[in-house]
């Protein structure tokens, strides 16, 4: 682990870490995802994406391999298929896309705190876009219809008047971005703390 650069070569330790953290991610998606959707908790996408970031970023900080987050995401999405919840195809695609976004931004930003925070923010904000794209492609809904539904439910949750549609939309985006940033920062802090406790080399 010491002085070792992140490479695309495969070793046993990385495989084990990818498998275990992928399983943890998949388990959280099946358990929390199903429960939150069933109880119709507001901002379910935000919560799920934040949990995913926490697991993926913390897990990948112990893996010396490029593309580890994408592999973990693939494992989690494969496990999500076996969830019996209402609609599965869109969450499965969301997990894969979130993993790709996280991996690309973290790879470009070279795993600094700033890059992890931005990656978290962008990934969680993507859940809004995913809802719109999913609505258009899978449920043949109109963009206006989806946005109307989104703004109506958000105005209820945020206790804001419906006439302030733009402010509501911007507030939703801001909340998502800030939650993602917080999840990214928390995962970075958590990875550092765990490395200190387990005497790992801090990068």
């Amino acid at each position, binding site marked *: *682990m010491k002085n070792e650069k992140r490479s695309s070569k495969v070793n046993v330790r990385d495989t084990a870490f990818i498998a*275990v953290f*992928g399983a943890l991610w998949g388990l959280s998606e099946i358990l929390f995802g199903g429960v939150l959707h069933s109880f119709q908790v507001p901002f379910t996408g935000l919560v799920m994406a934040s949990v995913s970031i926490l697991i993926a970023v913390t897990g990948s900080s112990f893996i010396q391999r490029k593309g580890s987050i994408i592999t973990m995401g693939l494992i989690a999405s494969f496990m999500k*298929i076996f969830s019996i919840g209402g609609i599965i195809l869109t969450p*499965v695609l969301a997990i894969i896309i979130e993993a790709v976004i996280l991996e690309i931004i973290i790879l470009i930003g070279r795993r600094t705190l700033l890059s992890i925070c931005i990656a978290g923010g962008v990934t969680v904000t993507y859940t809004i876009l995913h809802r719109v794209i999913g609505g258009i492609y899978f449920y043949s809904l109109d963009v206006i219809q989806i946005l109307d539904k989104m703004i109506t439910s958000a105005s209820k949750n945020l206790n804001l008047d419906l006439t302030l549609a733009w402010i509501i939309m911007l507030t939703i985006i801001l909340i998502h971005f800030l939650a993602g940033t917080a999840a990214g920062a928390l995962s970075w802090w*958590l990875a550092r703390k765990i490395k200190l*406790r387990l*005497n790992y080399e801090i990068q």
Partner: protein
Amino acid sequence: MRSNKYRKASFEFYLGVFLVFVFCPLLLPGDLLFTAPAAAFIILIIFDKKGIKELGSFKFWLLILILFFVMTFLLNPRDGIFLSIPYSVSNLKLAGQMFFRALSIYIGIILFTRNVSIEELVQLMRKMRLKEFSTSLPIAMNIVPLIRKNILQIITAFRIRGGFRRYRIKNFFMLLMTIFINTIHTAEELSQIMTLKGAKKVPEK
């Protein structure tokens, strides 16, 4: 568990059957979802009659069905009436979809696990140039019960020691850290076992 009778059928065929079982329930529109378990059941009878025994008793599935449908009397919006008891029509539809999906996935898993070994699955993924994924996926699928058990143990221990009654945020972070450290230990143990089994050497810490 593997039935010798159908060993001649190619592994790719079983993979195709499994994908049909799993992806059909995902892709079929809600109104046509009832056809998925019916088709799955017919395929199971054609290719692996003995697999029917593993489906469980009729009473078990009836109980699951009743449980799914009882929920519709408890959830909102209650837009329908059955014997003067209000129930949720939208949730009834969702319950039906969930039941049919669960049944068809379960039949698919029975057919697949009875006829295809994990080694064959790994080999096919290697053919598809998914070497890393082919090794990680079976490990992940097998390690899930262990991770679940560990997390439940941690949470129980945490509750015994006071849980979130005081210093909620601090305790939440401590709980998170414990879960992650436990997961890392599991991964380390797993990598050591894999190394002992003759895989590549693990780089030093």
